[in-house]
């Protein structure tokens, strides 16, 4: 079998082509495309809001409880603030920026890029992966102890855990990130563990072991790259859950602190006001719902498409 006779199929794809292929997979699925559009819409609105909003989101520039009209397209809230502007600005804390507390080292009082939902999911991915890899690959006592700890964490209803964490630590972007990290980590760890248990049986892991590679090398260099795909899809869903949770916390009045507008909080304010202005409740509700649904659709469509592609 001479090397020169290899068929064109096996020719090396350039990086660009591979990317192109990935993007095509997304658009192959209608579900994923719709989801992606919904998500991109909110990202776009968020970016615009960084430089421009129709009015000042945090100032009572108008009459209170206006219905949608030509000036305030979505009306005003109970304090006379423009709902559209607040809605646009509301994407920022979720998706685009995280405000650090004043006593944070170096960056104290500043905002860093990446929304609370994204950092929270990043946190749970990191923590969950480390725990899951150790539990899955090392097995035995490691597995028992890690899984026992995770079981304990999972046993908390998430909202209760949020409530407890926030009751204990107070409000703040970092607290919400921590809460999302802690509640998300067990799920990630379980997923990583089950994927690891599968990958662990592969012969290339045996090959690494017979080379005498260290445990950390095997976990992070041999196993981790191969569970990227499912982990990525899962993290997409997790961003959805995180936004879901942030909204719920905001609704419960214990979410992201003012002054930036928070969708969940907007819903809550509007709810109290529902007999005076039924319209204020709709935009932020829809915003949360569409963003989460968009992420879910995207992840779902992607997963289905990847499965089909692999078949």
């Amino acid at each position, binding site marked *: 079998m001479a090397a020169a006779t290899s068929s064109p199929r096996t020719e090396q794809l350039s990086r660009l082509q591979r990317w192109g292929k990935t993007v095509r997979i997304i658009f192959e699925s209608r579900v994923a495309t719709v989801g992606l559009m919904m998500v991109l819409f909110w990202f776009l609105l968020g970016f615009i809001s960084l430089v421009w909003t129709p009015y000042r989101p945090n100032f009572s520039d108008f009459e209170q409880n206006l219905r949608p009209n030509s000036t305030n397209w979505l009306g005003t809230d109970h304090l006379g603030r423009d709902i559209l502007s607040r809605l646009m600005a509301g994407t920022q804390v979720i998706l685009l920026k995280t405000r650090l507390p004043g006593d944070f080292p170096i960056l104290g009082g500043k905002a860093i890029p990446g929304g609370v939902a994204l950092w929270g999911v990043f946190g749970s991915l990191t923590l969950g992966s480390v725990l899951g890899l150790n539990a899955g690959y090392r097995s035995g006592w490691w597995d028992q102890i890690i899984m026992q700890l995770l079981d304990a964490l*999972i046993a*908390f*209803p998430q909202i209760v855990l949020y*409530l407890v964490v926030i*009751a204990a630590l107070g409000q703040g972007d970092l607290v919400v990130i921590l809460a999302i990290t802690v509640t998300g980590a067990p799920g990630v760890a379980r997923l990583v563990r089950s994927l690891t248990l599968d990958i662990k049986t592969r012969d290339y892991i045996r090959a690494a072991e017979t080379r005498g590679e260290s445990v950390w090398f095997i976990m992070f260099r041999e196993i981790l790259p191969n569970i990227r795909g499912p982990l990525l899809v899962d993290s997409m869903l997790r961003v*959805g859950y995180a936004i879901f949770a942030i909204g719920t916390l905001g609704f419960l009045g214990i979410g992201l602190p003012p002054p930036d507008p928070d969708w969940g909080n907007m*819903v809550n304010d509007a709810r109290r006001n*529902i007999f005076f202005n039924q319209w204020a409740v709709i935009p932020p*509700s829809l915003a949360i719902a569409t963003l989460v649904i968009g992420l879910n659709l995207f992840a*779902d469509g992607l997963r289905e498409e990847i499965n089909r592609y692999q078949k």
Partner: protein
Amino acid sequence: MARFLVRSVISTIVTMLLVSIALFGLIEVGSGDITVKILGIESTAEQRASYRAQLGLDQSAALRYIGWLVGNDWLVRGRVGHKLVTVKNPQTGEDQWWADVDGQLTRWRMRSGELYALLRQENGSSVEVLANDGWQLDPETGTEFFWGVNDNNSAVKWVRGAGERVWVRTSAGFRQQGDGPQQYIPLRKGILRGDPGLALQTGRPVAVTLIPRIRNTAVLAGVAFIVVMPLALVLGILAGVNEGKPLDRVISVGGLAATATPEFVTGIFLILVLGIWLKEIWPGSPFKAVALFTSPDAIFRDPTLLLLPVLTLTAVELGYVARMTRASMVEVMDSAYIRTAIIKGMPYRRVVLRHAIRNALMAPITIIMLHVNWLVGGVVVVEVIFGYPGLGKYIYDSAIFGDFNAIEAAAMVTVFIAVVTRLIGDLAYTLLNPRLRYT
């Protein structure tokens, strides 16, 4: 299988223990000074310190954890020198602590530097007698002291002649008193013995408020469960056997939308649509935009109050369970043994009903059971939206106030529910799956 069961039970117990430690630790680390919330922002540092001591917060965390978990009467007993017992207060039904001095239930009180014993009578009243002969000498400091049970259910240490000034919370307000003890150990039986302590917000035992709340939540979640389960399983199975067809698309995407929409959004929309808009067209509609739960028993007098909360929960849960079932059904319908059944010439109905469903339901049942704590989470939000007097609302209110006794107790209840349902899920899976049952 025995091995599996024992492991599950042990794991459950360990989980609960870990959770309780975590919960306690978290609140320990985080919660600010609760006395500020109770006494108000205007209170002085001295007042707060005194009150903290009365709440026993000056004890070490480990001691308090043990007291919270299994009670501290047996620890304190050595100091008091008598067995400590609880007696129900005939008026309030709450427990009172007494020392059992040779069969005579006794408490003590210090007044004007004199120590008095309060001897409990049969009818519940007590007789006060001077008890200065109880003082003991501390050989190191040379002072005389006495350990006893005071009339506020704490084990306390009085020092003769010290005349501590303490701030006492009374019905008339917060006032300073003399003759106070030097040290307080609030007596409790511990959560394992059924005493979750006193709610800081109200000063009444947590259990008294908690039990009707749990019952209300059980009603809400139970009704939702009964509505959701059959419907969701049927929808999931229908979608699963029609994979890729329009029916499946509708159920899948609908389910996804319902699951991905936060409970509060669903709730608000239901209020808006059914509670407000529908009311305008049909004034007699049973849906109420604002439900007033006048008492903890309101739902039994007016079951229509349940309508919107149940609908909200249903909307959220239905999608989830249906999607789980669908996924499992799709997987099963794709399996080799279903292929076998079809090629054996079994009619399609039989293939689905006899061969597929049992296998397809195995996975959802565990997942549904795992999902119960998600349901509890949903219940919190739903209860807050509708002001429903249940466990979730209770946790929420307590968390907002920072009432750690109440949170701890209520959170433990939710964790207990979650853990037990998971255990049930595991069991159900084992029973349904012959592979596990017979190994």
